[in-house]
């Protein structure tokens, strides 16, 4: 496979763990110089795909090329061109941030002097200079993840794999990690990002592959995906069950599709395009009609909504990632 403008090209990847097919004919193409989102619930095969593409795990079938090199035949050459930041911050908790980066730099064969210089650059780039000589054990979750990213960037890899880089982070740390990822892409690195959050894919990725049960079930831009699930939804929660039919009628006037009513949660929701007009319209009409409203608002489509629309089934969040 040669250089054809794709940083990652995977065809029909298969991986079995006993009876379970973690990947079942998974296809993926990632254009060089872009951020590509791999979106799916726990157990869909995201981590397995990343572990195969980053040469950590052997594939059972299909073939994959990263930076133009076959992952099965040339793993060492692939490793020289990739960075990997997994679900855990894979940094040494006892060493300081600087000691971590210097150690990884030497293990990337930079030599002591260049490893030290590179560590200094990266600490600055990832805004860790102040904490550079503190033990990583004292770092916040966001700082740890940034150090992990910095360690993946020591050789300025052609392709960077980020496996759920913000899972378990608070919103502020999440924002910090997102900023770092944007900066990396500006530097020319291709990023493959796995995530369970549609919002994260939306914010960072120019293209998104949705994975379910080891297969890619959609490959589209974030806007394209959102328009498939109907984009934003207006949502009304009423006080009295008897009001639900009236609310459905009101919501239907502004909605793009059939409103859905949840009788037990006393909730009515429907997809809308012109979000603000729709919301004010619904609010005004319900007030005029004297309907008692507990809550009203706009909701962005969640991964659950995407899944329901694409597969007809809800995400199986209880199902654990086989490779985890």
């Amino acid at each position, binding site marked *: 496979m040669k250089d054809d403008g794709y940083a990652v090209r995977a065809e029909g990847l298969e991986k079995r763990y006993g009876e379970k097919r973690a990947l079942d004919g998974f296809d993926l193409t990632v254009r060089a110089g872009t951020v590509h989102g791999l979106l799916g619930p726990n157990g869909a095969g995201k981590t397995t795909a990343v572990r195969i593409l*980053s*040469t*950590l*795990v*052997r594939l059972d079938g299909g073939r994959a090329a990263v930076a133009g090199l076959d992952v099965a035949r040339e793993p*060492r050459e692939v*490793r*020289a*061109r*990739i960075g*990997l930041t*997994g*679900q*855990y*911050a*894979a*940094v*040494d*908790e*006892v*060493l*300081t941030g600087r*000691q971590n980066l210097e*150690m*990884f730099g*030497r*293990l*990337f*064969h*930079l*030599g002591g002097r260049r490893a030290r210089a*590179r560590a200094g650059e990266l600490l600055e780039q990832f805004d860790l200079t102040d904490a550079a000589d503190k*033990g990583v054990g004292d770092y916040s979750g966001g700082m740890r993840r940034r150090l992990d990213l910095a*360690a993946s960037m020591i*050789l*300025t*890899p*052609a392709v960077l794999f980020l496996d759920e880089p913000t899972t378990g982070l608070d919103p502020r740390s999440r924002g910090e990690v997102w900023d770092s990822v944007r900066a990396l892409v500006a530097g020319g690195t291709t990023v493959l990002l796995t995530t369970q959050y549609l919002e994260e894919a939306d914010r960072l990725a120019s293209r998104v592959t949705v994975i379910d049960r080891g297969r890619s079930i959609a490959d589209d831009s974030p806007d394209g995906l959102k328009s498939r699930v109907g984009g934003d939804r207006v949502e009304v929660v009423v006080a009295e069950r008897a009001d639900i039919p009236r609310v459905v009628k009101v919501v239907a006037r502004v909605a793009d599709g059939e409103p859905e009513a949840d009788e037990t949660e006393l909730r009515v929701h429907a997809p809308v395009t012109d979000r603000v007009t729709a919301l004010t319209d619904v609010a005004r009409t319900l007030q005029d009609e004297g309907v008692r409203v507990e809550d009203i608002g706009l909701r962005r489509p969640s991964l659950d909504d995407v899944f329901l629309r694409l597969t007809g089934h809800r995400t199986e969040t209880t199902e654990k990632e086989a490779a985890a």
Partner: protein
Amino acid sequence: MSALDLTGPAGHGRVYWALADCWNVVRRGLTHYRRQPVNIAWQLGFPILSVLLYGYVFGSAMRVPGGGDYQDFLMPGMFVMTMAFGFINTATVVVYDATKGVIDRFRSMPMASSAVVSGRGVTDLIVACAELAILMLTALVMGWRPDGGWEFLAAFGLLLWLRFALIWLGVWLGLLVPNPEAAGGLFAVAFPLTMISSIFVAPQLMPDWLGRVAAWNPISSTAAATRELFGTPVGGGDSWVERHALLMAGVWPVILTAVFLPLAVRRFRRLSR
């Protein structure tokens, strides 16, 4: 920085990088001890405490078959016990690195993958040297006086030889157990195994069947062999394995390595399954 730089200056082959990578992993291990000196204190605290407890508390009540000083019997046993428990330290570090994703990071890098394990092993041997030196000083302070000459270096070597063999057991267990908490539980298994040996009590004093098991415990051979080399050959039995302690102290670690090295390598390879 181009990706092509990473094989380093031209002329360096795989062997060079395997050694260089190993050394860098060793540096990491030693930096751990420098940053957390309390860890090495804990690691040494147990054997030092044992030397004091067994030496002073039991020492008065213990007797050595055939006569001889219990201290001469106990101290080499203590050195062996410290080496034997070392595999728990190896396992703990390995399971920690495996569960925290550090091993995965190493494996995703273009470094020699053997360095992940060889670096661990060299670190553990360096730490074992420090442990033995401190324990021997403690023993000397307590009045232990080995009679041998330079043979004590051979004893030192046999102790490290045992520790070397147990690195592979440690790596294998570290990759086998699911989390660091489980590695702590290994102590509960290791402790009785060291008791059923010639470390604290001569096997002849045990019930017949237990004594036979204790005599064949690999660490019993190292204990008896080092007692000989320290010039204080007390408490030896007359079964075949006890009469050939020096030989068996060399052979047992070979057997242990032959069993656990392939198991550890297989387990390491299984990471990519």
